[in-house]
């Protein structure tokens, strides 16, 4: 009797014990999961959430801007800055000097840093935004502002003149840096970082140029040449869709996906222009058009003399890398003995084009692409072009990439051999890349040579602008926008030898 009742009691007790344990397990497990859920849901709050939690007593100091503020990072950065500045100087010098060399305009024979110190004021990060636009990638946008006091002295050598030290003063940089992290399934989990400056809002780099122990006017157009170099580097290297891809050590990964690659071909026929402005005192303008997507690859039409309604009817082919963000830029110039003057500029965003469809478009010529600062609303005529866009297939893409590399290589060689002044001016190369085109510009070999020779030609970039050195703004848009940003072309004939470096 005792045995059975004991056993019964034991069984009941044992089962109860297990039931209790199970109950405890479930309770604790639920509690942990609930906590995990709570913490997760609190990890990214927005205004409405917080309003709901806090009700009446919403903390005043909290706001939710699109770009999240990072005061703590700024505090740390300003503390760290003297050390960063020290460490970065050598690196910047080593990495930027070759760039300057590649992009320098034909008028300058050498451009080097003779002094580079980043100053005492740290850049400020206005905000950070993190998005995941594509699977396996994190896109981080950093709103960066730097009104620093760096001391940058460029030693510039131009033909005929020995080295002139030029100081870059009052540098201000406002830009949004986009960093894309390509994720990988191996530590450190990031296989490559892509860095670029966002095109929208446009990067703004302001600075003042000052010649030390002399005057900038010693070399006419020098400041414009420097501006052009800086703008070209920015628009052609850094500004989205152009980018810098940095593979992060350790993980063998194919970064070619991330690189900017030729995406398609644009066949553009520059048909005619109407009602161009007359810039000549005697006779009419001698217009020609320059067409490009990247400033490194420019093509040019022939010059039609003494005509305000020129018909060129010339066809070129250009490579597009990123249809979504790139634009076709067409500038019309008046050929002149001295400085060629711009009659107008037009921009056609490639996104407006349909692939495989030929289209005739009439564009209004503007004094500048940066209309914010230009008051001149006068009509500058129109330009008619025919555009045809074709997407590359993979093979063509590779071929185009190779071709592009080859051309740049070749130009570099030419430059070393001294045939042309700069990588920037060999339009013929670009033209031959795409088969057709009558491009023949360039200080070294182009129009200006016959007159004064390349030496003086170097100086030709515009006496008209010699007076305006201060307070220039470069909006990273194009060479051309800058050019008229600093000087509105109102002057007429100039008795200045040499051609205009493009």
């Amino acid at each position, binding site marked *: 009797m005792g045995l059975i009742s004991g*056993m019964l009691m034991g069984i009941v007790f*044992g089962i109860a014990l*297990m039931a209790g344990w199970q109950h*405890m*397990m479930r309770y604790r*497990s639920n509690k942990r999961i609930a906590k995990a859920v709570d913490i997760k849901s609190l990890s990214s709050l927005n205004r409405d959430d917080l309003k709901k939690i806090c009700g009446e007593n919403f903390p005043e100091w909290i706001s939710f801007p699109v770009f999240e503020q990072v005061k703590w990072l700024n505090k740390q950065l300003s503390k760290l800055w003297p050390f960063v500045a020290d460490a970065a100087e050598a690196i910047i010098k080593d990495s930027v000097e070759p760039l300057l060399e590649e992009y320098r305009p034909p008028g300058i024979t050498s451009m080097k840093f003779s002094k580079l110190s980043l100053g*005492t004021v740290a850049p400020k990060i206005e905000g950070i935004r*993190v998005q995941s636009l594509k699977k396996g990638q994190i896109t981080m946008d950093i709103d960066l502002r730097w009104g620093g006091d760096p001391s940058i002295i460029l030693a510039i050598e131009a033909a005929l003149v020995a080295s002139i030290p030029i100081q870059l003063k009052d540098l201000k940089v406002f830009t949004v840096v986009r960093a894309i992290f390509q994720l990988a399934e191996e530590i450190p989990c990031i296989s490559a970082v892509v860095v670029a400056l966002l095109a929208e809002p446009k990067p703004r780099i302001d600075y003042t140029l000052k010649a030390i122990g002399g005057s900038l006017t010693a070399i006419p157009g020098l400041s414009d040449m420097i501006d052009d170099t800086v703008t070209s580097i920015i628009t052609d290297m850094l500004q989205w869709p152009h980018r810098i891809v940095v593979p992060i050590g350790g993980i063998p990964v194919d970064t070619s996906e991330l690189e900017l690659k030729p995406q398609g071909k644009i066949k553009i026929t520059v048909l005619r222009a109407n009602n161009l402005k007359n810039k000549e005192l005697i006779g009419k303008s001698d217009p020609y058009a320059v067409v490009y997507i990247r400033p490194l690859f420019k093509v040019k039409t022939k010059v039609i003399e003494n005509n305000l309604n020129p018909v060129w009817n010339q066809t070129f082919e250009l490579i597009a890398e990123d249809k979504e963000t790139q634009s076709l830029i067409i500038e019309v110039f008046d050929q002149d003995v001295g400085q060629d003057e711009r009659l107008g500029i037009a921009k056609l965003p490639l996104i407006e084009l349909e692939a495989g469809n030929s289209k005739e478009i009439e564009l209004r010529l503007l004094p500048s692409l940066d209309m914010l600062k230009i008051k001149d609303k006068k009509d500058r005529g129109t330009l008619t072009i025919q555009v045809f866009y074709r997407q590359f297939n993979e093979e063509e893409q590779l071929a185009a990439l190779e071709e592009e590399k080859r051309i740049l290589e070749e130009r570099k060689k030419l430059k070393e051999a001294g045939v042309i002044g700069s990588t920037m001016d060999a339009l013929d190369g670009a033209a031959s890349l795409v088969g057709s085109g009558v491009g023949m510009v360039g200080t070294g070999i182009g129009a200006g040579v016959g007159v004064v020779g390349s030496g003086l030609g170097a100086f030709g970039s515009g006496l008209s602008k010699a007076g305006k050195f201060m307070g220039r703004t470069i909006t990273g848009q194009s060479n051309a926008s800058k050019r008229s940003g600093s000087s509105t072309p109102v002057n007429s004939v100039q008795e200045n030898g040499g051609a205009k470096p493009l």
Partner: protein
Amino acid sequence: MGFFSTILGFCGFGVGISTGLVIGYYLFIYFQPCDVKNPVIRPLAEQDSQSLQRLLHEIPLWVKNPDYDRIDWLNKFLEVMWPFLDKAICKTAKNIANPIIAEQIPKYKIESVEFEELTLGSLPPTFQGMKVFVTEEKELIMEPTLKWAGNPNVTLGIKAFGLKATVQVVDLQIFAQPRITLKPLVPSFPCFAKIVVSLMEKPHVDFGLNVVGADLMSIPGLYRFVQELIKDQVANMYLWPKTLEVEILDPTKAMKRPVGILHVKVLRAMKLRKKDLLGASDPYVKLKITESKAPSKKTAVKHKNLNPEWNEEFSIVVKDPESRALELIVYDWEQVGKHDKMGTNVVPLKELTPDEPKVMTLDLLKNLNQNDAQDDKFRGQLVLELTYKPFKEEDMSKDLDNPLQKAPEETPPGGGVLVVVVHEAQDVEGKHHNNPYVRIIFKGEERKTKQVKKNRDPRWEEEFTFMLEEPPLKEKLHVEVLSTSTRIGLLHPKETLGYVNISLADVVNNKRINEKYHLIDSKNGKIQIELQWRTSS
């Protein structure tokens, strides 16, 4: 009889309870799902007030405290990265653990141990706020609040004696408040030499440990005991002021400290080329280390001499003998106008054997640019004697470990050395010009820093030492920020941008004080001065 039945009852109870436990185990626990589900996260907007009430307990610190910064962008970053991190970490963990397991199991007569499941789950750690501290020292301090309430699943399958058991860790939760200090700051990337981590509070750890499906941590009392054990263990190792240090850079190299002294004896030059139209040139030699910011040293000018003998000795501090070189330029002195360069050459420091004097005869070149068309004209020769003396290893490491150095041996007993380091100033404003430098006056002795041009927030980082017979208990140090015009002119002469008198008794007691002082006679000006009192004992 009653006794007998009681015994039987007990036995029955014993048998019963074990049967009961087994039945209970199969009834309630065995069929419990062992897999870890992803919890459903509902948006806050949908939650009722009751669950919101529960949330309040976990509200991030940046909501509550204005001194914490929100770093939700980092949370977002981590969230996107988490699946990748999860795989990477698990893969690495497996690779590390497997050999260790293989080595250990034969000892315990276990057939095999393997990971049946290893994942960190879908929930990433979250930062609930970031606080940073700014001190006068060369360090960055930040305190993120880290909460990881994850749903990892780590299942170990153990086979022994033909039986198989599983051990599973689930629902790991770790809440910690680490303090991350980056120090010292150094002028080479990544700009700090060490990461020092310590926990400001005991961390909270919670998890479920399922052995054969039953969660041991739910046994009342055991959980608390284990939690306390873990907390204490971790606290013993990393609770502030105990730290975990990770060295990133070798501080000696990173600091770019001097590593040796180069003794240069400029003996003579021979057959220099004539530069002056009338009579011979007046040569002198300038020496410096390439890319160093220190001013170059000069010999005396030997007038009207193309074969001058100087026999002058110089000592130059060397920071990086591997990549630097000694640069020598011979100039022609002129009464008026620019001094002409007569020739130049360099001696790479790595060519020198330490502690061994070497006499060198150098041909003078027009310039150092290799690419430039050299004109081969003979410009004369320069004879030097060079000795490179590296500092001893011990001296240097001693320096680093202890920021408070001892006074040199020749200090008088009872006395010591007062070191004044002028770091930087902020918001110093002059009426007409802003080219500040600092003058410090102590016992009538005056020292000056270099002038920083056109700067409201100048940095000097200069060190001055005063040798004293006795501790300066009653003395004061006068620190003054001055500005002079860069142009020569009597219009706006020297002006004072502010001054401060620092009593030195505190320094003697504290050995070292590093503080920002408000400047008197200045609007908002502040100056950071570090004072040290070094004694020989």
